[in-house]
């Protein structure tokens, strides 16, 4: 596997937000003075009603957006001042899973996962081994030849998860990963995420799924109108949708 080069992480935190504001061009205020720290190896839920600023927060962490005010530091990268040319290198430390899977429908399971390895220029010889390993981990070793359109929703999300994990990210961001899945499949995905977390990867899950949040018993950050309403270790879902 590739060696990761990471800058000094302040006080063991992989993510630090200090008094972060985000106002969109239309004047819509999405985040209002958010501060939080996430330590290496943590499993964190971010919950909140629609429009509470969860998605904006994820986009800031991915450096898809920049903060209007305040500091966003991820894995030692100051995302307010990072040069454009360094963004790809920074993103290679992150894995991301979306609600709608975002798989390449014209390619099979193997190709969807190998795609992520090719992008980070992994030597061809390693790709086959790494993809096989990660597909076995998500329980799809026997379906590697199938087109993603032939898979169930739960299986598609596993492929997306395998793609996010194959480059061994330090942080896994999951944006509503169970939004399109039934409770049983949702629970399976959460168990996989927990397994990933046990391997040392920091996992951040944005969700509306109350049952899962309550059952997992992890740190829960609740957001409302662009601010952090509560931040509880081993908490539950407290949002009234």
């Amino acid at each position, binding site marked *: 596997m590739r060696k990761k080069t990471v800058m000094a992480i302040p006080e063991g935190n992989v993510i630090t937000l200090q008094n972060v504001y985000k106002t969109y061009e239309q004047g819509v205020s999405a985040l209002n003075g958010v501060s939080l720290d996430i330590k290496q190896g943590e499993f964190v839920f971010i919950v909140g009603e629609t429009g509470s600023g969860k998605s904006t927060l994820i986009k800031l962490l991915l450096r898809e957006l920049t903060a209007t005010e305040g500091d966003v530091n991820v894995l030692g990268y100051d995302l307010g001042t990072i040069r454009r*040319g360094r963004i*790809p290198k920074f993103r290679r430390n*992150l894995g991301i899973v979306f609600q709608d899977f975002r798989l390449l429908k014209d390619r099979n399971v193997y190709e969807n996962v190998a795609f992520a390895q090719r*992008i*980070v220029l992994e030597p061809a010889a390693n790709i086959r081994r790494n993809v096989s390993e990660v597909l076995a981990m998500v329980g799809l070793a026997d379906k590697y030849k199938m087109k993603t359109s032939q898979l169930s929703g739960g299986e598609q999300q596993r492929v997306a998860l395998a793609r996010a994990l194959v480059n061994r990210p330090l942080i896994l961001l999951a944006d509503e990963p169970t939004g399109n899945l039934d409770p049983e499949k949702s629970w399976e995905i959460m168990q996989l995420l927990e397994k990933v977390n046990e391997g040392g990867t920091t996992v951040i899950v944005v969700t509306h799924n109350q049952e899962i949040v309550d059952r997992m018993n992890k740190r829960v950050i609740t957001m409302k109108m662009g601010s952090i309403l509560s931040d509880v270790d081993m908490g539950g879902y407290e949002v009234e949708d």
Partner: protein
Amino acid sequence: MRISTFFYALGQGFRNLLRNRWFALASIATITTCLFMFGVFYSILLNFRHIVATIEEGVSITVFFEPGTSEEIMLQRKVEIEERPEVSEVVYISAEEAWDSFKGDYLGEYAEGFTENPLEDSANLEIYLADVAHQAELVDFVEEMEEVREVNYSAMTADTLTGANRLIAYISVGLIVLLFAVSLFLISNTISVGIAVRREEITIMKYVGATDFFVRAPFVIEGLLIGLVGSAIPLGLTYVLYNKVLEYIAAHFPSLSGLVTFLPDKTVFATLVPICLIMGVGIGFLGSMFSVRKHLRV
């Protein structure tokens, strides 16, 4: 760039072409048409220039001197004229040579009756030009010489040839500009469609940490391939057509071959091949770069 990245980009470029084949074919067809037109015009123009140049070589100015001008002065004037850049050659024809030539051309055996040279004052300089466009300047220069009695030249020939040359240049430039504009627009459009079709894939690539180069390279390669194919086809077509036309002229207009000579295909294609390839590939590259820069701020 790693070799594997190069092959990846090449593979993806081909893949884009296939996936986007109708747009790609439309672009290739347009470039082919434009470059074929260019190739045909270029062959005609090159041959026309060749014919004009052959005629130019025969255009001469004859300078006669005042009676009594010594040969020494005439030769001195010859050197001065030779030094001018528009002059390719100056030939001194003495009175004796002029008379010999006249006798040979017109009198034959009747020349026996002449005991003296009737063309005693006909020693002259025959000037051949490298560029007929400068004929008027040269005539002015020569007429200023005090020993010069008369300068014979044909202003019309020079003007016609100069005009024809200029027309050739204007047509060539106009054609190239038009060709560039149309082809650039088409390739750029094809690449934009390709980018739109692959928007989802590009977004994922971006999230996974693909560099700008990695995302853009396949699209640029797609443009290059369109340009390359779009220039190779018309080159082949022009080559076949050129030889067919030469064969046809030789077979049906044998009288023409005595008047004018056509350039061999090797001479025409020695310049046409690199020009077409550079234009095709250049248009492909520029067209794709426009689209990529516009739509792929990754």
